[in-house]
């Protein structure tokens, strides 16, 4: 039996989320197939053969796969499940959109946000915003799983020597059309893959103040995140949000500036290796999980910290 992983890519490169998913796939079996579906994506499929732990790259090329719409990809995935015991995708907006559709077409359950693989049929996943962990066992013939990327290391992008196969494409569903996107452009690292994140909360008080995090972020080579309160108040765009309903992150260093620590925020960052909290309220719940806490006005902290980084 083989493990089928659905690659997330942007028509140019494989996204790191795919590499984390491949590590989870390798825990389930040795025969790992990676589906690269897109339009004119031969180059991505070829480069994917070098990823460590992949046995076969399945390449499906058609115009209607260009924007990775779930309506188009789901029939493709279900057409290649012969001999497949598990179907995996990252628990990103891409995977969450696609895999439940695949599971329903196969008449099996979907298992969301898996953080631990106990055995080939038993998995651990967080519920209630990470306040509880459920261990679930599936007796479905095919297990359809989205993987929380922060729970598994990234597979190496080289060292592999997978074979490549073309897959017969599915007929276009034609019920939905991609109109456009507005992607947040930033020179900084992506939130979900950054080694260091500096995150701001309502304590920053307005959008102009929020920009003061940029100077420090650039000195650290850090990504910038935000609490739900800061996003709701309009300081930064939605895709900055770290939390249960935003992005789940686990960097080496997470610096929370003016964030009180609501449960839903903690759910998104509590697996960071080192957490630093700066807050003038010493009772703020964020201090309960921070490795290093500093009770200080963030407007005093930021310039001091910035100067200290210059002298590093």
């Amino acid at each position, binding site marked *: 039996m083989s493990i089928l992983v659905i690659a997330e890519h942007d028509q140019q490169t494989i996204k790191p989320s795919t590499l984390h998913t491949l590590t989870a796939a390798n825990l389930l079996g040795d025969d790992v197939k990676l589906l690269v579906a897109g339009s004119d994506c031969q180059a991505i499929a070829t480069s994917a053969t070098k990823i460590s732990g992949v046995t076969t790259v399945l390449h499906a090329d058609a115009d209607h796969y260009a924007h990775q719409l779930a309506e188009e990809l789901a029939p493709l995935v279900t057409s290649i499940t012969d001999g497949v015991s598990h179907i995996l995708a990252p628990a990103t907006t891409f995977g969450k959109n696609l895999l439940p*559709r695949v599971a*329903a077409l196969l008449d099996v359950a979907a298992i969301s946000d898996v953080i631990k693989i106990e055995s080939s049929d038993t998995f651990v996943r967080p519920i209630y915003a990470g306040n509880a962990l459920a261990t679930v066992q599936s007796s479905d013939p095919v297990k359809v799983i989205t993987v929380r990327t922060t729970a598994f290391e990234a597979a190496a992008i080289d060292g592999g020597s997978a074979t490549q196969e073309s897959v017969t494409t599915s007929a276009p569903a034609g019920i939905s059309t991609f109109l456009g996107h507005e992607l947040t452009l930033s020179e900084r690292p992506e939130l979900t893959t950054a080694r260091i994140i500096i995150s701001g909360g309502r304590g920053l008080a307005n959008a102009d103040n929020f920009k003061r995090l940029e100077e420090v972020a650039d000195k650290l080579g850090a990504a910038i995140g935000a609490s739900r309160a800061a996003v709701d108040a309009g300081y930064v765009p939605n895709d900055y949000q770290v939390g249960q309903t935003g992005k789940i992150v686990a960097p080496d260093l997470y610096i929370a500036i003016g964030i009180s620590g609501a449960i839903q925020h903690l759910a998104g960052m509590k697996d960071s290796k080192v957490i630093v909290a700066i807050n003038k309220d010493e009772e703020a719940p964020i201090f309960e999980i921070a490795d290093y806490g500093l009770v200080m006005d963030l407007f005093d902290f930021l310039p001091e910290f910035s100067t200290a980084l210059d002298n590093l």
Partner: protein
Amino acid sequence: MKILVPIKRVIDANVRVHVKSDGSGVETANIKMAMNPFCEIAVEEAIRIKEAGHASEIIVITIGTSQCQDILRSGLAMGADRAILIETEAELQPLAIAKLLKAIVERQSPQLVILGKQAIDDDNNQTGQMLSALLGWAQGTFASKVVFNDGNVEVTREIDGGLETVSLQLPAIVTTDLRLNEPRYIKLPNIMKAKKKPLDILCPDDLGIDVNSRLKVLSIEQPAKRAAGIKLADVQELMDKLKNEAKVI
């Protein structure tokens, strides 16, 4: 055009959840329950679509115990026209829910189904996508904007890198993200009016749907707690710790 809005009753978002010591689940006795926040956003969006003249009727539906009538009444008080309860004691999983909803869609023929993107109890984020699959409909998940346009619906979706806009042929499924709208407060006279609105009760057997699940929950446990850290005196001490103890900068 009819809009169907499936909603779920969950532990209130402001309640701190406690895991039972025997690993069987979380404490729900005497705990405040409420409509899932994403479902409230779905009801609100349906009402706004109707207010804008694109819909004639809104049906709210939930699947659960008879106590779930309370959230249906909330949906009716917000502005839905009628309600359906599929009454069951069983804790159903998203695939079974999607199958029951499909049967209701076939009976009621809505052109649009709006659901919350996920319930804040099991955090599955599956039901809308599964229902779309079973019906063969288009899906606009994680919506932050919904616009009607010539027999299509344009949905702006919150994706990891920003926003994406897709056009869906009707009938279609939309699942709501946090910032699609701000649900209205329910006014007292509307609560009184809601009591008079129709609420039908069905059971899964009426619909001939097998709701058995092949996914078994073995245990529910509390996650390992992070050890409490230390409070530092100043920025200098922080720099020292980050550099020499944690070695992260």
